[in-house]
Every structure is written in structure tokens, then in C-alpha cells.
């Protein structure tokens, strides 16, 4: 059976791409859930007064930010099997997803950590001192005075990174994670009774556009919400 007309092909392609995009979304959200807190821990590490610790963390951040995410994906996915003879990820789509999630979380946590560091160090010392002379405790100063100022500072660079993440999820294609690009590409050979079609791959761009468009609006809204003060 083969489908030749676009009208016939579209519903089939659409359904297949939706399944792929679901995997894209899953990788996106899992990465955020892991990298947002891990980034905070890394940023504290790199600001630590213990020199060996901050030095080590800075080297790790340099390596992760200084090498391609695609390479990191390959090393994390194939490394344990080839180097240690211990394929920890297991086979199949679940194993590929797990390896992808680990690679993305580490990579994005390092980027986020630098953004947090800028946000934390960007709040003037005077804010902390003002809180102190007014008799506030350190936790009170953090939660009531500096936290919101930090968040305001990090929202623009974070929105930039997060929109980049939407598109970076496609790199997981290199270890054959069945995300939306993989699903689109499958129609070039043959999939769901459709073969030799290029347009489904091109059509995946629409998914990215819509999703990053929604995020752009969301971050614009958050920035606007915090525009009432300058820090």
C-alpha cells in the first residue's frame, strides 16, 4: 500500500511526527527539571571559597561548555559500553532517552550555572548590607531582598538558553533517539507506508517554531511582570 497524494499522506505523517515531538518535549522538560537545580549547585561550587573545589568545578564547566554537545552525547551513550565494557544504559529507546537526558542535563546545568553566578554576583553588596543594618537574618535577606533581584537578572539570559534547548534536543538524533527529526527523516526512506518523501522532515520545523514561539511569549510576559522595578 502506498499513499501518493499530500492529502492522504498528511494525517499519517502528522500522527507520526506528534509521537516524535512528544519525545522531544519529554527530553526538553526532563532537561530543565534536572539542569535548573543542578546548575545552582554547580554555581555555588564555582563561587566556593575552597579553592580546589571552585577550581575543579571551573575546569568541568570549561570542558562541558568547550566541547560540542553532540560529542558529549556520543561519549555518554557509547562510552560505558566501549571503554568500560559495561553498557549501563541498556538497549532500546529507554536507554537512548536516559543517556540523552544525562548528557543534556550536565551540559545545560553548566550553562545555567554561569547565568546564576552572574545573577548572584550582580546584586549590589549594598543590598545585603542594607538588610544587615536593618536587623534582618541572612535567610530573610536572601528571600525578601536579593532573590527577586537575582531572578530579574537571570530571566533574559535563561530564556535565551531555554529557547536554544528546544532546538538542541534534535542533537539526540545522533544516538537515534526517536524525537521529531528522527520521525520526519524516517519518511525519506520508508515509514508507515510512505517512502521517498522529504517534506515531513522540513515540516518538523513548524513544531520547533510553534514551541519556541510559545516560550518567547511566556518569557516576554515574565519579563514584563518584573519591569516595574529596576535593580
Amino acid at each position, binding site marked *: 500500500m502506498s499513499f501518493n497524494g499530500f492529502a492522504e499522506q498528511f494525517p499519517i505523517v502528522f500522527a507520526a511526527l506528534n509521537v516524535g515531538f512528544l519525545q522531544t518535549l519529554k527530553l526538553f522538560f526532563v532537561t530543565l527539571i534536572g539542569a535548573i537545580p543542578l546548575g545552582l549547585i554547580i554555581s555555588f561550587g564555582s563561587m566556593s571559597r575552597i579553592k580546589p573545589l571552585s577550581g575543579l568545578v571551573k575546569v568541568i564547566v570549561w570542558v562541558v561548555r568547550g566541547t560540542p554537545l553532540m560529542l558529549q552525547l556520543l561519549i555518554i551513550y557509547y562510552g560505558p559500553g566501549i571503554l568500560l565494557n559495561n553498557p549501563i544504559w541498556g538497549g532500546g529507546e529507554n536507554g537512548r532517552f536516559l543517556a540523552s537526558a544525562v548528557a543534556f542535563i550536565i551540559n545545560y546545568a553548566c550553562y545555567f550555572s554561569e547565568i546564576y553566578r552572574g545573577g548572584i554576583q550582580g546584586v549590589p553588596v549594598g543590598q545585603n548590607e*542594607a*538588610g544587615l543594618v*536593618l*536587623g534582618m537574618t541572612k535567610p530573610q535577606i536572601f528571600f525578601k531582598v536579593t532573590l527577586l*533581584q537575582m531572578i530579574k537578572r537571570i530571566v533574559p539570559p535563561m530564556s535565551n538558553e531555554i529557547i536554544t534547548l528546544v532546538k538542541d534536543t534534535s542533537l539526540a538524533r545522533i544516538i537515534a533517539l526517536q524525537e521529531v527529526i528522527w520521525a520526519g527523516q524516517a519518511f525519506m526512506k520508508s515509514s508507515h507506508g510512505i517512502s521517498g518523501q522529504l517534506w515531513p522532515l522540513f515540516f518538523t520545523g513548524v513544531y520547533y517554531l510553534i514551541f519556541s514561539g510559545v516560550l518567547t511569549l511566556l518569557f516576554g510576559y515574565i519579563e514584563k511582570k518584573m519591569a516595574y522595578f*529596576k535593580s
Partner: protein
Amino acid sequence: MNILEINNLKKSFGKTEVLKDISFSLKKGEALSIIGSSGSGKTTLLRCLNFLETADSGKVFLNGDLLFDASDKKTYSERDIREKRLNFGLVFQSFNLFPQYNVLKNVTLAVELLRKDEMRGKQKAQIRAEIEQNARDIIGRVGLSAKINNYPCELSGGQQQRVAIARALALKPNILCFDEPTSALDPELTGEVLRVIRELKSDDTTMIIVTHEMEFAHNVSDKVIFMADGVIEEQGTPDEVFGNPKSDKTKAFLVKSLEQI
């Protein structure tokens, strides 16, 4: 009785001795101006009084009671320091208002946090109303009732500094310190801030003002200290220090300060 007595206060940063044996006293209701060139230790002295820096040696007495003894400093907990610090208020050169809060909230925030434990159950609304009324009164005293709902970024530098003064007053400190309160302001805005400080002068308000405004120091203060290189070079009434300085360093400083005008 002296409200404040400082004995032999010393402070170094690394090898640099910033405060070398500072001693002076202050009576309740007095306004003390501290003058001197940059780097003479004026600001460090204020920061030691407010525990933003910890003196290396020396003692501070408040109303005759020992408040701080540098030889005991290791025994003070963070909580002790916080309580001691509340005897002093500090108005910064750069205002340091909380940008995310409006004028009213800037003034009430610290008081609300301090009285958090009292604010339970039925009393909560009553105490909150009391804190707010008190803040409104103080904001009125610095002439900013019309700006009570504005955010710091919507105010001029002079207005921001007046809010900072109100914020410090809300905690009713025994001694209110000003660290060059007009140095970050445009010349046309210094007047409004100095006027507010002058109006605060009363039998209840004891003030220490680090300033470069010689006329203000001369006209408003009861006592003037001239600092140079970490020591009190000269102290006395404004007429003594400005009219008849004894030290050569004081004379040279005053001549230079007047030249600038």
C-alpha cells in the same frame, strides 16, 4: 551620661591600619559631624559601629553599658550581633533601597520581620496596621507622603535618600549614622536631604554624620571630629574646630575644603 562611648577602637585591613586608637563620646540628643579627607577612616568607623566591620580591638559602651568588646568578639553569635546592631541605624551614601518594594514597604519590611513572632492570630492585623501607621508618619516627616506607593526607580536621588532615612528611623535606633548622605547626589538635591537631617535634630535623636558638607557640619552639629590617617586629629564644638583649629592638618584640610567652594 554619655549615650555612646568609644574606647581605643582599632581596625586594620591586611597590613593597612585604618583606625588607630579611636576614642570619643557622645551625649544623648547630640549631632556629631565627622569630617576629613577620603581614606581617613571615617566610613570604616561608622561601619564598625554598625557591625558591618568588626573592630580588631577596643570597646563600645551604650548608655554606660558595655555593648561591644573586641576581645570577646569570638563569643558573639550572629544573633548577638544582630541585636547589638539594632541600636544603630545607618544611612548609606548610595541609598541601597530595596528596588522591588514601594516606599511604604521599604520602610515597613524590616519592622514587620522583627515583629514576626508577635504577629500571630488576631493580633496580626492590628500590629500590621500599627507598623503601617508608624511608617506613614515617618514618611510624612521626610516629606514624601505623596510618593508612598512609588518604587525607588521612580524617585529622584534626593527622594530616595529621604526614604532611606525614613527606613532607618522606623526601627527607632538609639543612634542614627549617616555615611556621606549627600555625596551621590546632584548639587541641587543635597539641600532637601540636609534639611531633613537638620529637622531630625531633637533631644531624642542622636546622630553621627560623616560628611563633606562643611557648612552643614558647622551649622547643624553640636560636635565636630576631624579625622586624618586613622586618628582623631582634632575634636570640639563647630566653632572651635572651624573657627580656631589647633592642628596644622586641620588647618590645611579646611583651607583646601574652602578652596573647592
